[in-house]
């Protein structure tokens, strides 16, 4: 039964697309060599901006972390669709025999891995620079996963909408930031609870991110083909 499940076309196609995207990134080293250092630099700059006030940094660590994720994640999302539009690739993407739901899921999965790795780097940065202490590791992990899934599916959905546009480099962040803002808010609140700086409904905020992810996944599965065609 399990073997048959792994052979289902959607899963196989999803993994194929994700593997391709990750391989492109591995070869190009943009995520590792440019986006992660830049996001780390943002953490450092924010620390300077707050005058290395340790108590203030500790209080705001959750929010500052998600601001850095928002910035780095937006760059990764943009990069994910730059690859598809370079050298006329959008035609090949549209002509692909791979189903639209698999393209959506595959690109989302690849982004999930990349943003997840970015979060690991940023998490280490926060721990070193902001002197934080985790009080609920499970909530921290679940909130990070929920936020990453939500970022990924929202990014792919909005990325494909702007992919065919000449002004996508500036338009995509403009479209994305308002969409990602609720994830930023929910992630910040959940992290503040996990870091023990706020006695709040951290699990509710984490659940909200899963709901946002589920809604965008449903829309993406249904509409990605249309958006790809008309984008």
């Amino acid at each position, binding site marked *: 039964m399990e073997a048959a499940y792994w052979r289902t076309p959607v899963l196989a*196609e999803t993994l*194929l697309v994700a593997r*391709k995207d990750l*391989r*492109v*990134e591995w*070869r*190009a080293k943009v995520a590792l060599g440019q986006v992660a250092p830049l996001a780390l630099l943002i953490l450092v700059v924010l620390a300077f901006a707050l005058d290395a006030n340790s108590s203030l940094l500790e209080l705001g660590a959750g929010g500052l972390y998600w601001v850095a994720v928002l910035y780095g994640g937006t760059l990764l999302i943009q990069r994910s669709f730059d*690859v598809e539009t*370079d*050298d*006329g*690739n959008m*035609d*090949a993407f*549209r*002509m*692909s*025999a*791979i189903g639209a739901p698999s393209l959506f899921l595959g690109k989302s999965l690849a982004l999930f891995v990349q943003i997840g790795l970015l979060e690991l780097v940023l998490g280490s940065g926060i721990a070193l620079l902001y002197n934080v202490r985790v009080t609920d590791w499970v909530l921290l992990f679940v909130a990070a996963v929920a936020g990453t899934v939500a970022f990924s599916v929202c990014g792919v959905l909005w990325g494909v909408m702007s992919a065919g546009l000449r002004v996508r480099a500036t338009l995509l962040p403009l479209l994305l930031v308002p969409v990602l803002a609720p994830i930023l808010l929910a992630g910040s609140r959940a992290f503040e609870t996990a870091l023990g700086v706020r006695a709040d409904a951290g699990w509710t905020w984490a659940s909200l991110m899963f709901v946002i992810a589920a809604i965008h996944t449903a829309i993406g599965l249904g509409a990605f*083909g249309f958006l790809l*065609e008309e984008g």
Partner: protein
Amino acid sequence: MSAVVEFEKVVAVAGSFPVLTGLDLRVAQGEVILLRGENGAGKTSFLRSCAGLISVSSGDAHVLGFDMRVDRRAPRRYIGLLGHENNLYRDLWVREHVEFRAAAVGAAESDTDAALLRVGVPKQLWSVPIGSLSAGQRRKVAIASLVVGRPRLWLLDEPHASLDSESRENLDVILAEASQLGATIIFASHESPPTNGIASRVITMGGGRVLEDSGAS
């Protein structure tokens, strides 16, 4: 022979500009069609309409039996399209790229090697990033990406561009072989003969319609 492309009074618009203006054309299976015409004649638009990348505004359009006004995505899995650009992932290695295209259409891994050898990409280039190849080598990789999919309908826009004379002749042989195996080939070219040599029919376009058809009865 059954019709692979049947366009009747087809009008297509890109933005607000009419790119096909009442095009009538029927292409039978196995034909090798050479499209000729000045810049802006509608050759590329016709090829993209056949691929469903430009929607048909009016008229009847069927490709591989699919009604393009109902579902223009349906025939794509049987079509190989090569435009002016090569549609390549520059950061991937040559073999990785063709392997991905092969896997996407369900071809075997061994088909990748065969396709690369068939179009004349030497083995020492297979593990090289596509971005570091010359224009001609990239064109060959793009052609290999089509060959590996064994399309039933080949739509090629200036396929000989950037290729040296030996590679051009090799491409003609590849297309002739595909045609003998039942594939239909439509290609646009500004090349002088001998490119005409592989074409079983020459169509001259202008203003988004057929001006002259060597196969017209």
